[in-house]
């Protein structure tokens, strides 16, 4: 298992779980996709903070989510990332009464995670270039 992964790859994997109808993933895909997407989201934030504000990646998730908008210089995306993390976390924990997230919900979450990965990529590019 490669230790170095990138958020794009994880996001793609999550999307594939949704889209590819397979007997192997039947039934487990919603939570699996949620897990992968959340990992991609957290990885994206980690990479962002390593590049623009080292040390921030060690703080609590709540803190990291609150800072995302500012650090990305995109408050709207930051808000969506925070909301998405909460949605995905529900799917990653056992909740009484909660069924796994639905395909539609996951689709929206994955789109946000993908947008985050893109934004992180751009931000890191700028930092490297500066």
């Amino acid at each position, binding site marked *: 298992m490669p230790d170095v992964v990138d958020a794009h790859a994880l996001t793609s994997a999550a999307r594939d779980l949704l889209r590819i109808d397979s007997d192997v993933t039947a039934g487990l895909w919603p939570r699996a996709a949620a897990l992968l997407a959340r990992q991609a989201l957290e990885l994206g934030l980690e990479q962002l903070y390593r590049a623009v504000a080292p040390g921030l990646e060690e703080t609590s998730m709540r803190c990291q989510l609150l800072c995302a908008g500012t650090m990305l210089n995109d408050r709207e995306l930051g808000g969506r990332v925070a909301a998405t993390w909460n949605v995905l976390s529900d799917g990653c924990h056992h909740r*009484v009464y909660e069924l796994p997230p639905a395909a539609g919900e996951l689709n929206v979450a994955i789109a946000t995670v993908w947008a985050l990965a893109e934004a992180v990529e751009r931000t890191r590019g700028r930092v490297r270039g500066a």
Partner: protein
Amino acid sequence: MTDTALFSLVVERIASQPAPDGAGDLVLAAFAGRSAVDAALGGQAEQPVAVTDGAKPAAAAAAYLTAIEVEGFRGVGERTTLSVDPGPGLTLVVGRNGSGKSSFSEALEMVLLGSNQRWKDRSKVWQDGWQNLHHRHSSISARFTVDGRPEPLVVTRSWNDGAALDDSALLIDGKPKALDTLGWTEPLAAYPPLLSHHELESALDAGPSKLYDALASILGLSQLTDAQNALRDARLEMEHTSKRAREAVVTLRSLLEQTDDERATTVLAALKPKQWDIDAIERTVAGSGGGDEHGVLRRLRDLAGLPVLERERLTSVVTALREAHDGVQRLRDSDAARAHATAELLQQALDVHAHTEGETCPVCGTSNVLTYEWRLRAVARVTELRAEAAQAEAAARMLGESARAARQLVSAPPLALGDARDIGVDTGAVTQLWERWAEVPDGDDVMALAAHLESQGLRLIAAVADLRREAAAELERRERSWRPAAEAILQWLPLARAARDAETSVARLKNAEAWLKSAHDELRDQRFKPIADAVQANWTALRQDSNVKLGDLRLAGAASQRRLTLDVTVDGEPGSALGVMSQGELNCLALSLFLPRAAMPESPFRFVVIDDPVQAMDPAKVEGLATMLARAAQERQVIVLTHDTRLADAVRFLDIQATVIEVLRRESSVVELRRILDPVQRYIDDAFAVAKTKDLPVEAQRVIPGFCRLALEAASALAATRRMLREGKRYAQVQAVLAQPSTLLMWLGLALLGDAQRGGDVRAHLQRQQPWAVDAVMECNRGAHSGVVARDLMAFIRAVERLSKEIAPEASRA
């Protein structure tokens, strides 16, 4: 619940509790229908009532559901099959809203009921959008195992591409057939095996009479109701007849009051009492009676036919009288008048001479006069004189006869003239003339007599003729005025007779109805009792800590008054269910009502499908619901579709035997159905599945710690719940505690240390109790985020599995 059984119950009852006079026959006749009731009322010898029971098909055989197959219908694209175990038991179909789970219940409903009213009520959008967007071929099937059938029964509804919703073809075992051939049409209406959230929500709003119908139909008393209706219809028709007759009397009376005719008065008098004297009225109209001897009409008729002297007769009598008088006068003035006397004298002379010979006259003494010659002449003269005298005698006789005939013409004024009250004709003048006419002069003065007759007679004749015309005209006028009334009466009479007959019939019918009603109510209460008990038991299970207590549940009243009494007490205070219950409680109550109905032993449907009963239900109720469903599932196949896991959790936590099927929907309407044994094992299985599969992208393996963490959390939830319930905590309290943990350590704190807040102590606890599990737990937490697991994957998953089983040993039993 065959009809003959019900009928013999009624016959027995009539024997033991006889109905009032004549009502028993009507009750029995009512079972054979309306025409039999009419016949019995008509007094016709009644055929023994034949109650058909052969006409009804034998009760359909018991059927369990084995599968619902859906293709291109609603939320389902590719053909997907929901398989369930045929036989009693509880199956939960769990899926989020939009996952496609309701497509299965809707498909079953569509297969069994077609596009019926309930579907038509739906919005146009729904109706147009019934066909799945991703899959244009539509076909839905339900499979059943049916007692006595070796092969499964398959009922299919399919559509040609682009067909409308209600344009489907029904196939039974692959052949086009009507659903009726299964004998399911009536049971579907009486014991609906499909209960949707929508129905549960609106059932109680429908009103007490609809609820009555919904429940009364299962009591099998429809024959009694039909019989009651037959009696009531007959009675209403009779009452209608009476009413029409009474209404007609009002019109008739005003017509009669305007009619200037004594018959009108007679009829009015006969109409006044409550009981009309129909016979008298009939006689009056027929003209054959009624009216007294001196009635106006009678008197008018007498006047119109008043005997009248004919002018010709009067003239001839008077002329004859005058001629007889003239004849007598004429003979008296001539010599012949004395002829008789002379003839007598001569005859006496001849007689004297015959005895004394001589020719001397004994009167004057002249001799030689009474000679033979004289004698010859005298004899001739006597003959001559006698002829003359006969003429005079005839004339006198004639005069006598003429005078007598003339006097005979005259009679006293007829009685008819005497009473002219109220007849509208004046008889005074005629009476006066007639009296004067009757004053015939006395004595032998025939000329005076003739003059009196002639003058008074002619005047009287003219006056009587006038009077007769007048009386006739008056009669005609009265007849004209009476005729419409008479016609109206003639028209009314049959109605009146029918109404008179109807009154006695109505009394009999009322008795029969009253008898049948009490029989019906008693049987109804008897038969409803077990259902009411089941509802009470259900409600007791469901209400939990609700302060609403269900009172006596009864079907009461009839016709428009029929209702289901749904009285409740709230903390001891009486109230109405609809007024005091929350929507969730109402849903519970509706389910309490309809589950016993669906579970009637007479129903061929051994399955009941309940779509989303837990909406608007609080957690405490869900526990009660689970208990109630579990109880129903002991004898029936209970399939519940639900949009969240509350029910599934309750079933698991309460250790209720159930099959849980999860519905998931991928993109493009691909619907997956998975049986879930228990969530712990399921997450472990998922983790193993991902670990073992080679053809997944490497990234996928990063989900394994996440699944492992889910398994541990689920095990913790199960263990904590079971422990708290054992400790006697209420289900609602347990649910509140289960909402607390948000991390794995909190879950483990709750499960292992009894407190979610003690997550921080978990590691130390594990170090002491299950040191081998410490690393696995920490890796679960770390790996769920980073996705990285350093050690051997399989060993990691096995450690998690072992720890799960130690936390929740119950889980593996499922």
